[in-house]
């Protein structure tokens, strides 16, 4: 069986699962947008993990390890293990509780009420969508590239990415959040299992794990150390995982949880899941140093290493695993942008109560189609690498983190403070992004975006009128 056939079988199964989930739908907009708060701990763990690990985790990590060595694990994976879980615990559970209690479908609905400002919602919307779109581009670009490589250029990357987008669109369109959750869970299992298989098969092909690493050590000893990474940069990377606290697609996944207890498994096992995926990928990237010249396009390293295997069946299975990792984020992001357009724009222009439940679902679906088409078109013009695009995208979300953290833990946080933090983030992000800086004083640019945003949030909140007592009582109940 050719690798392409295996990939098509995988795509067919995902399609079937996603569309099949629509038979369990309850027909309400609450079910379409948040699966009726029915998701238990295991599904939540798999979907949250699958959503946070994208092309960036499999393709980006191995590519970056090929370039910079084993330090990539410390930069992203071990920091994420600590910080992601902390954010799930400190931010996710609280947001879930407000979402459940007050019936929010999107983050912006929460911020509008917490900060008593419709205007803030309108300002946040383009910023959040503007940051999700590059994140979507990562998946579309990587998925198209991977499928084109698997097909040995029978498909161009352009049409391969169209196929990926089309499949995701179909199951998100019919299955809504439930379809997304089911497909996500299956994709997460597939990419975790295939990651382990890839590690085993590739190491066997290279003569075992010891021989593989020794060959890399002989060619480039620095890849086994962190000589290529500065201390300040290594430390400043801790800010990047804070971005998950502002991911709109993750917020929507949190809302699907049946109870707060469903979060426990995600908080505890998330660092282990990251380790199971990242250690093999980083090692594969480092092993590649011995087999490919240093000027090899680093985003293609994982596919090149899989290509070393002679068995077409294995190549097909492992390629399906890569696509699973990519698609497990794409679907959530498409779903969330559609939900945001429906709830944060449409229902603010035209009163929500004038729509029937069916019309709300169709509005969401139309927006999802629009976003898929726009993303696909933009992906054809993107030239940045997956790793750098992801880091810039995460940096923007991290800049917005003070807005959510203050909303949950600081009664004195005001709408003026939140608006100031939003503008300061947008300005510093644009200034640093367009000046194309990689490091500032040895630290990642995110350090300055975050600090500027946090300072703006604090100073402007202190100088502006505090929120009303009613809002404080609503979001800071006595015992919560």
């Amino acid at each position, binding site marked *: 069986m050719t690798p392409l056939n295996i990939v098509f079988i995988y795509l067919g199964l995902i399609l079937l699962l996603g569309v099949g989930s629509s038979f369990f739908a309850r027909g309400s907009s609450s079910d379409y947008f948040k699966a009726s708060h029915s998701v238990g701990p295991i599904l939540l763990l798999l979907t949250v993990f699958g959503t946070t690990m994208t092309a960036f985790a499999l393709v980006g990590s191995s590519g970056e390890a090929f370039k910079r060595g084993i330090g990539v694990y410390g930069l992203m994976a071990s920091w994420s293990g600590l910080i992601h879980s902390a954010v799930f615990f400190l931010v996710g559970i609280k947001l879930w509780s407000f979402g459940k*209690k007050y019936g929010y479908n999107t983050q912006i609905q929460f911020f509008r009420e917490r900060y008593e400002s419709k205007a803030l919602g309108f300002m946040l919307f383009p910023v959040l969508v503007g940051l999700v779109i590059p994140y979507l581009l990562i998946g579309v670009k990587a998925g198209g590239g991977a499928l084109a490589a698997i097909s040995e250029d029978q498909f161009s990357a352009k049409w391969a990415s169209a196929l990926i987008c089309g499949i995701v669109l179909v199951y998100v369109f019919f299955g809504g959040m439930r379809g997304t959750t089911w497909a996500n869970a299956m994709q997460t299992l597939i990419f975790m299992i295939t990651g382990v298989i890839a590690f085993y098969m590739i190491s066997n092909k290279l003569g075992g*794990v010891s021989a593989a690493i*020794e060959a890399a050590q002989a060619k480039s000893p620095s890849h086994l150390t962190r000589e290529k990474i500065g201390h300040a940069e290594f430390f400043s990377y801790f800010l990047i995982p804070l971005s998950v606290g502002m991911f709109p697609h993750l917020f929507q996944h949190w809302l699907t949880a049946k109870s707060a207890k469903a979060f426990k498994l995600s908080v505890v096992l998330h660092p282990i899941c990251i380790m199971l995926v990242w250690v093999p990928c980083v090692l594969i990237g*480092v092993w590649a140093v011995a087999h490919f010249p240093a000027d090899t396009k680093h985003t293609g390293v994982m596919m090149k290493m899989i290509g070393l295997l002679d068995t077409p069946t294995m190549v097909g299975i492992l390629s399906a695993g890569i696509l699973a990792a990519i698609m497990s984020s794409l679907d959530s992001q498409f779903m969330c942008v559609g939900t945001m357009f429906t*709830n944060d724009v449409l229902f603010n222009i035209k009163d929500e109560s004038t729509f029937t439940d069916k019309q709300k679902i169709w509005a969401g679906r139309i927006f999802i189609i629009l976003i898929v088409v726009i993303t696909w078109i933009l992906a054809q013009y993107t030239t940045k690498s997956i790793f750098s695009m992801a880091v810039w995208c995460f940096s923007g979300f991290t800049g917005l983190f003070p807005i959510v953290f203050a909303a949950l833990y600081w009664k004195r946080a005001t709408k003026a403070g939140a608006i100031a933090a939003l503008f300061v983030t947008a300005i510093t992000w644009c200034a640093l992004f367009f000046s194309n800086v990689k490091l500032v004083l040895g630290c990642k640019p995110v350090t300055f975006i975050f600090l500027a945003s946090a300072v703006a949030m604090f100073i402007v909140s202190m100088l502006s009128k505090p929120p009303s007592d009613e809002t404080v009582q609503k979001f800071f109940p006595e015992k919560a």
Partner: protein
Amino acid sequence: MTPKARNVVIICVAVFMVLHHDFWLWEDGTLVFGFLPSGLAYHAVYSIVIAVFWFLVMKFAWPQAIEDFAESGDEEKDGGEE
């Protein structure tokens, strides 16, 4: 979560942030078990220790009040209207 438990969690997270910076292994390419560079081995173990830490937090510092708040009182309204 009691203020004492919350402070312990914050202190532990701060300690883990310091432990993340293993400068002593920065330029050490020694292989652990013959295949794992020492810096990577350290961070893999670090990930496991963090999972154990979060398990203990879930066991001893679970914020029950947040769950009670979400489950109590009014029915959910749809859409978050103002």
